[in-house]
């Protein structure tokens, strides 16, 4: 060890620059990878929607002056249901990937203190239209489905369907079906009985870095009342052409609701697949950017460490020759240089990890970011140590081939 450290201390500049560079690269890479993972979350989370190409979503149907009457929304849904090629229709407060209107609540398991932050979709026939996979219990009954909510629906008691993830959170022991959850507090509390559990359903609030479980979602039945911007979901029969059904959906909604929509804001009609693509476009762009940055950072560091090590090793050609003359084998020289690199890069990594952590703490205070999980730290460390070894390999191999006779020249 001493024979490695001493020369480093004597010629400080080169090793110091390597340490500085590795530390900075480590801090940047850890945080960039963490941000990348956050942006990747909504892209990778299973959204639970069956056959996304056969689901049409009509949204941004904004009423002017007064909210839509529930009876009018129901009539529109019936007209849509009567179209050829339509298997199921939902009218809802908001739908998955409709990021403009979002509902969320803090459901609490009755009889315990367990609470969660969960999204809610309030509407009719949602299980069928969205193609959700029911894993326990039942779907809402027709009577429950077509209930006209007085408000949007949060303050009423009745049945609820939740995702498996939310069920596991609220009721860690035992089955969720038949259990009670509370929404709201005080005398405003609504009591909901869990009647079914679906495998997955993604929320339409991606959290943007906040710590949110994207699969904590509830379904509440009924047509949302006092609500100005509902969405319609239309499930197209498997044998029908989505494009032509979409054209008819547009006509029906325009005919039934078009006279009372807000000026300057037009309803939008998409297949769910398109909508998902658009909603996630920003996350996807950020993923590419962060991945690009991380790669370039690593590449620049590799090139830099390689260039500096090459010089630092070349400068000591004569000493290496002397060592070889005194009996050191090629392998000893290789080991020596690799060990030296490990030491220098390692100390850079240690400083870098501390910096990464501090940067994350600072970011957490100023932006809505969550804590850097500690698992990123060894990951970043391994990455940079491997990079360092890769950088030293070329120069070290070259140095190990220095013939002992160099030592005898021009002393």
């Amino acid at each position, binding site marked *: 060890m001493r024979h490695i450290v001493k020369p480093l201390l004597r010629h400080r*500049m*080169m090793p110091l*620059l*390597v340490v*500085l*560079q590795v530390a*900075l*690269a480590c*801090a*940047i890479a850890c*945080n*960039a990878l963490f*941000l990348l993972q956050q942006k990747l979350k909504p892209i990778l989370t299973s959204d639970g929607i069956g056959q996304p190409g056969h689901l049409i979503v009509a949204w941004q149907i*904004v*009423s*002017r*002056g*007064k*909210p839509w009457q529930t009876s009018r929304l129901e009539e529109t849904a019936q007209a849509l249901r009567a179209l050829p090629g339509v298997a199921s229709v939902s009218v809802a407060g908001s739908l998955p990937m409709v990021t403009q209107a979002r509902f969320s609540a803090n459901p609490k398991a009755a009889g315990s203190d367990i609470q969660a932050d969960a999204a809610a979709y309030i509407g009719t026939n949602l299980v069928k239209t969205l193609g959700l996979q029911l894993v326990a219990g039942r779907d809402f009954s027709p009577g429950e489905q077509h209930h006209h909510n007085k408000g949007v629906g949060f303050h009423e008691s009745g049945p609820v369907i939740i995702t498996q993830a939310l069920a596991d959170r609220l009721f860690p022991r035992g089955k969720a079906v038949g259990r009670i959850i509370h929404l*709201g*507090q*005080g*005398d*405003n509390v609504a009591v909901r009985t869990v009647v079914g559990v679906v495998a997955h359903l993604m929320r339409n609030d991606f959290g*943007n*870095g906040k710590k949110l479980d994207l699969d904590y979602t509830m379904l509440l039945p009924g047509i949302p009342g*006092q609500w*100005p911007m509902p969405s319609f979901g239309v499930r197209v029969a498997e044998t029908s052409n989505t494009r032509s059904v979409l054209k008819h959906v547009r006509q029906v909604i325009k005919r039934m609701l078009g006279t009372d929509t*807000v*000026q*300057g*804001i037009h309803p939008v009609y998409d297949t769910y697949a398109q909508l998902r693509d*658009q909603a996630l*476009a*920003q996350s996807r*762009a*950020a993923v590419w*950017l962060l991945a690009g*940055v991380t790669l*370039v*950072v690593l590449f*620049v*560091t590799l*090139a*830099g460490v390689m*260039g*500096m090590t*090459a*010089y*630092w090793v*070349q*400068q000591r050609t004569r000493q290496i020759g002397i060592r070889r003359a005194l009996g050191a084998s090629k392998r000893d020289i290789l080991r020596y240089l690799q060990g030296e690199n490990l030491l220098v890069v390692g100390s850079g990594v240690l400083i870098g990890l501390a910096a990464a952590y501090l940067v994350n703490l600072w*970011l957490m205070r100023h*932006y*809505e970011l969550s804590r850097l999980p500690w698992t990123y730290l060894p990951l970043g460390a391994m990455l940079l140590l491997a990079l360092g070894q890769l950088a030293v390999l070329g120069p070290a191999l070259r140095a190990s081939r220095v013939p002992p006779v160099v030592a005898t020249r021009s002393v």
Partner: protein
Amino acid sequence: MFGYYLELAWRRCRQNLSMMALLVLTMAIGIASFMTATTIFGALSGQPLPGISNHLYVATMDARQTVDKDNNTYDTPQSLLNLRDARALIDAHRASAQFAAAQSVTTLATSDGKISSLAIGLMGYGPLMSTLGVPLRDGRPWTQAEQAARAPVVLIDSKLAQKLFGTTDAVGKSLQMGSQSFRVVGVTAPWKSRTQFLGLTQNSDGPLSQDMQFFVPVGAALDAGVGPISSGKCGNKAPVISFQSTDLGHCRWIETWVALDTPAQVKAYARFLDGYARAQHDAGRFAYAPHARLYGTMAWMDVNHVVPDDVSLNLMLACGFLLLCMINVAGLLAARFLRRQGDVAIRRALGAARRHVFAQHVVEAGLLGLIGGLLALPLTLLGLWIVRMQPVSYAAAAHFSLGVFAGLVALALAVGVVVGILPAWRVCRQPPAIQIKLA
């Protein structure tokens, strides 16, 4: 001497092309990513109306008139007020200038209804135009008397005038807005703020502002059935209303802005505002303790996150990356310079002073920096183009300008010189005798 150093630097650059390419490319990538990030950040931060918004403050308070059991706390400051409160604050004339405003979208048409256009504009109360510095081309703003009489008058911008009337000379003409005929009293030049700052809590469509195409006194607009885009927050016992409603008696939907020039004035106005809000609470109109507070434009934009988090995070990432590139280049330059210690030693032995050797190497580093900057120019353009292609709300802010170019050149030179200082100092410190021996 300088020319000679440049020539030396140039000759050396050509000697080891691959090394030089690596150095220059590293600098170029660092500079380009930094320039891209700062261009966007610069376009989105700073005063929305330079010289004007510096003196503007928005009044905030918890002006809820009914108890809301689900939200008993007042965590985020609210700028939206009931029209009655906004009017009272403005009619008090306690600031040097004050106005209330809300954004509106509506259709404006010629009297015969043949040409119409959907336009976005401001409904205001008080001297909106002069306080915001909206440039008038023709005519005049609405008068106090017209405002009090709820006279149907409107100002439109020259583009809208051209579209509706075929001429910008539109003062005196009539147009249809909502259910009434409005007289055009003024034509403004196209006007928008650099970034959004009015009605931030209602607009979530990104940090960039749009042209305000019309300005109308709020009373006349409401009479004609033209409401604000968003009806804001209404009391929970009131009838629920939707967008573009004029049934706003129970709602908080309009913002009050005041112009204050000195800290003393700000203090005095804050006291007045607090007194007003408390009086309303004591009188039983406000259900909660009002927490009245003034926010300066920048502070208000900060509270409402006008600059998206991603933009500032990207800027920090780019800063870190530039620093990394600089350390990298400094190391590689040091290696490059020290390899030539022999040449240096001979120059020193022939009489070159240390400072000459130092200057020569700094010049070489500066030259490399400039070449890096030259290469960074197309890379920056590429970076901005990529950002413009992105589905982000601030994409339109990614534009190259002369200022950006000047910044880029200065940055490139500075990076080169700063990065060269350490290696140059290191190389000129070597005693010549030992080096000649080594060479």
